[in-house]
Every structure is written in C-alpha cells, then in structure tokens.
C-alpha cells in the first residue's frame, strides 16, 4: 500500500467505509451544567454500537444558557439507529428512563425534519391524566408532573435519513501511551465539529472488529490484522515498531459532518507528530462493497 507522509506521520492510501443511518437530536437541559450533563450522559450510556446496543448515541455539543430554549445549561445529544422503528424505540426508552428521571431536567427537539418521532407525545402517559399539553408559538410541549415539579418535554422531534455512521480513523503508535495521546487529541478536535459524535467510551475504541468470525453466530470478531500481539501469526497490517492501535469511530448528521470530523482528527494527529503520538493513520473498510459512503484519507489531509 502506498503511503503519504505528513509531518512524519504516515497516511495509508485507504478509505473509511460508512453506512447510511437514521438519526435524531435532542437538547437536554438541567438546573445547572452538572445535571444537564448527567442526564445526557445517562441517556447516551450503553450506546456504543448498533450491533449490541440498538443505537449509537453521544453528546454532540454542550450548550450555554443562551443557546437553549429554557435559558438553562444544556447538551445537544444525537442518537443513530438503523431503522426509524428502532430509533423511535430507543428514543422513548432512553428519554423515559434517563432524562425524565434526572433532577430538574427538560427535553427539547434538537433537530427539525419532515419525519417526526414521538417524544413527549409518548412519555406524557407517565402523567397518569395530570399531564398538560401546551402550545406556544408553534411548538407543542407536554408538562408531566413529577416529584420535583414538572418534566417539560417537546411533543415530537425531527429525524434525518441523511445521517452517516461508521466513519473511522485507525491510529497506529509505538506504545499504548502514544496511541492514547493521539486518540485523545483527535477526540478533543472532533468534539468541536458540530453534528458529529463519537459513540464509544470517551470517543475511543480499542477493540476494532472485522465482520464475522470462526465461531457460528458471531457477527463481528477481533480485527486480528491490527492486533499487535498477533503480528507474527496472522496476516498483519502492522509493521515492526507498532505496538498499539486505537480507533476513532464517527457518526455524523450528514456525510459532510463525518468528513469534517475525520479531517479535524487527521490534522491534530499529524500536528502531534510520531514522537508524541501516532506513527501512522489508517482507516477501516470492508472492501468498499458494503457501505455507501467512502472517505479516502488522501482527500482529507490538512
């Protein structure tokens, strides 16, 4: 595979392969930043991969009081799923169990779109007949009485079918510390890109996968080509000197958001250089036949 080099960091001539998904976004607010964030973190917990979690979700950006509908601190969270029905189910369960329950929270639509998902329109039944419908300026809210006052929730939220899931970067480094330093830098940089989320823990995956496995029923198994301990015994992608690989997985509201996030990640990792961070940047794909969206690393260089 031919390689380019930017600031001493090798860039593989390969591409990330990503898939079309359904996505929605919420604005979750709370009485202060801590509790707005807590509701958002709980709601987006256990949402790393659609394979095992049903959806992929994370905080997109934190919002200042001046940017939220109720003038309190908040977070915009995004949720991705493979079908509208699954997205509706995940949305309802997660908001019902994690946002409704969080002290002082409120929940608003974070996206407009032609297709609407039920939000408060589904959760209102928790009010057991005491819920109040309110329409203000074209927005429809449900007010559900709870033990600390009222849970206010917008009735519906828009959904997009233009979302993309599975953009990725593989960061190959000489040591675990350096791989983590490069990955953390990429996570921080991509955190500034609106409309793109990193659903894995802290934005980083250490167990990249390939499709299928030797055992029956395994949809995915370890990516042995990038596992350093298997370098001698499998058809490895790793050259001598690479001892740790970490992956950044990106879901975006649009294809452009994914490309912008990958570009931001590549820039910061190449800026960090091979001494402190990654020796090489690669990307994961399935040969290009499964995913509709291909992001070639050479097109995303700084």
């Amino acid at each position, binding site marked *: 595979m031919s390689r380019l080099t930017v600031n001493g960091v090798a860039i593989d001539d390969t591409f990330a392969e990503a898939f079309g998904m359904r996505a929605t976004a919420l604005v979750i*607010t709370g*009485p202060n930043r801590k509790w707005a964030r807590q509701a958002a973190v709980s709601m987006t917990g256990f949402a790393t991969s659609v394979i095992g979690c049903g959806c992929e979700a994370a905080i997109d950006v934190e919002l200042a009081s001046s940017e939220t*509908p*109720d*003038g*309190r601190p908040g977070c915009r969270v995004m949720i991705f799923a493979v079908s509208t029905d699954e997205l509706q189910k995940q949305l309802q369960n997660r908001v019902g169990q994690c946002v409704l329950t969080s002290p*002082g929270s*409120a929940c608003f639509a974070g996206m407009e779109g032609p297709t609407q998902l039920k939000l408060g329109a589904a959760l209102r039944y928790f009010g057991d007949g*005491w819920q*109040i*419908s*309110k*329409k*203000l*300026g074209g927005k429809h*809210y449900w*007010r559900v009485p709870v033990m*600390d*006052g*009222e849970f*206010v929730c917008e009735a519906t939220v828009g959904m997009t079918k233009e979302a993309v899931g599975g953009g990725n970067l593989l960061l190959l480094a000489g040591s675990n510390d350096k791989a983590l330093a490069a990955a953390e830098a990429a996570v921080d940089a991509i955190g500034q890109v609106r409309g793109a989320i990193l659903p894995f823990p802290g934005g980083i995956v250490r167990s990249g996968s390939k499709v299928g496995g030797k055992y029956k029923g395994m949809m995915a198994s370890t990516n042995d080509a990038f596992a350093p301990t298997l370098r001698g015994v499998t058809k490895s992608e790793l050259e001598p000197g690479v001892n740790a690989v970490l992956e950044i997985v990106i879901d975006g509201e649009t294809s452009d958001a994914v490309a912008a996030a990958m570009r931001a990640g590549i820039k910061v990792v190449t800026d960090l250089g091979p001494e402190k961070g990654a020796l090489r940047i690669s990307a994961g794909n399935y040969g290009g036949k499964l995913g509709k969206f291909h992001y070639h690393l050479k097109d995303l260089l700084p």
Partner: protein
Amino acid sequence: MTALTFTLRAQPPERLDLSPLTPQGLAGLDRRAIAAIRIGQSKLGSTVGDNFRISGNDPNQIVFDGGSSRFDGVGAGLAEGAIRVVGDVGAQAGRAMRGGQLTIEGDAGTHAGSCMRGGRLEILGSAGDHLGAPLAGELAGMNGGVLVVRGRAGAFAADRMRRGLIAVLKGCGDHAGSRMIAGTLVVAGGAGEMPGYLMRRGSILLDRAPRSLSPSFVECGAPDSVFATLADRHLIAEGILKRPLLGKAPHRYGGDNAVLGLGEILFPA
C-alpha cells in the same frame, strides 16, 4: 400595489357590519362593486361608498382610516392578509378569524376575537367584555391564534377558551378565564374578582397574586418551573411583554375543583 384604504367620511349614522370587507371577501371586486356593498344595519342600509372614500388597490392590505364604536365585525372570518384600523371598533372585531393579522389602533367593543381559530389580533387600546368569548349558545370560545390587548379588557375575558393565547397587558375585569376549557390567558396589570371561575383546564398567568379566587381553587406550591420560563421567553420573543412575567418559580393554584380541576393560575412568588 398600495393598501386598499377606506377613509371614513363622517361618523356613521347607523351601526355598520364590516365583516364583508376582508381580503377574501373583496378579492376580484372592482372599486365600484366594493362601494356598492351594503353594510348599514338599520333601515337606512348605507353602503361602503356612503361611509368611506376608497383608495388603493391591494385587497390583501386593508386599512380603515378612522374608526367608530359603530364598526361591528371588523375582520370577522379573516383568513389571510392584514387589516389595520386607525381608530376604535365596535363589537365582534376579528370574530372567528382563522389567519392573517388584524390590528386595531384604538379600543374594541365586546366579543373582540370571539371564537377566533388562528392568526393574530392586536388591540392597542382597550377591549370590552367577553374578549375571545363565545356568543350565547356556542360551546367554546377562542380556539387558536394570538390575541393581544395592550390596554385593559372587560369582564369574562377568555370565557370558554379552548386553545391559543390571549394576553391583556393593563388589567382586566371580573371572572377572567371563566369556564376555560384549555389554552393560555396572560393578564398583566391585575385581574378582577375570581379569575378562572369554573375553569376545567388551561393556564392563567398573572403578574401578581389574584385579588380573590373561587374557594374551589387549591394552593399547589411553587417549585421551579421550566414552563414558566418558556412562557416568559415566548411572550418577550413575540413582542407582547418587555420583561418576564412569572420568573423561575411562580406560585401555582390548581382548579377549579368545582368542575374538572385541571386548570392552573400562576403568579410570581
């Protein structure tokens, strides 16, 4: 195109029914046909031309230059476009309007915005009794849209209101929001006796504690209210109020428990 303007020649000799003079009522009519419309409600039966000098040609922008408490039904059934009255109007201004904008720069009589379903009615002066309310025999009052009275409103404002927003900025008479079915009534400047009398659902937002309440209202505490903030911000964003009405944690009374009891009266702590 300039606004179609009806300039009042003199104080009308009889009550006038101005409900035909809306954008949809005048679409496609030439000036002669408009002047021939009969609007007088007594045996005089005067026409538009008898009472007004007509100028301009855009029926989507109608202006009444000069008003009178004898102007009844101004903008009734309005569906789109704008009507502006430079002066007072009589009864039933904007009754059953569905859309568009009706602005009355003077005072309005009784039943202004009666049973309106959409659009925006703004009265810069004061309004009479039964603001947004149904006529005798009708089951529901205002059913949508926004009704703003910059001055004072009479008794029974928002009677049997079902949907939408009514804001009265300089106080209103007794029994505001009586028999409300749902919707939102905002009263700054003080409400009269027993606001929310026999209300089933809906919200009455006041800028001060009510002078009196029906005994079937019950005190419901003052927790932090996101809805109060949303309402305050909406009223400011719509240009209805200049500063927040309720604050972060308003007092709440629930009622009227003589009927369904799912309504509320909120006022600042």
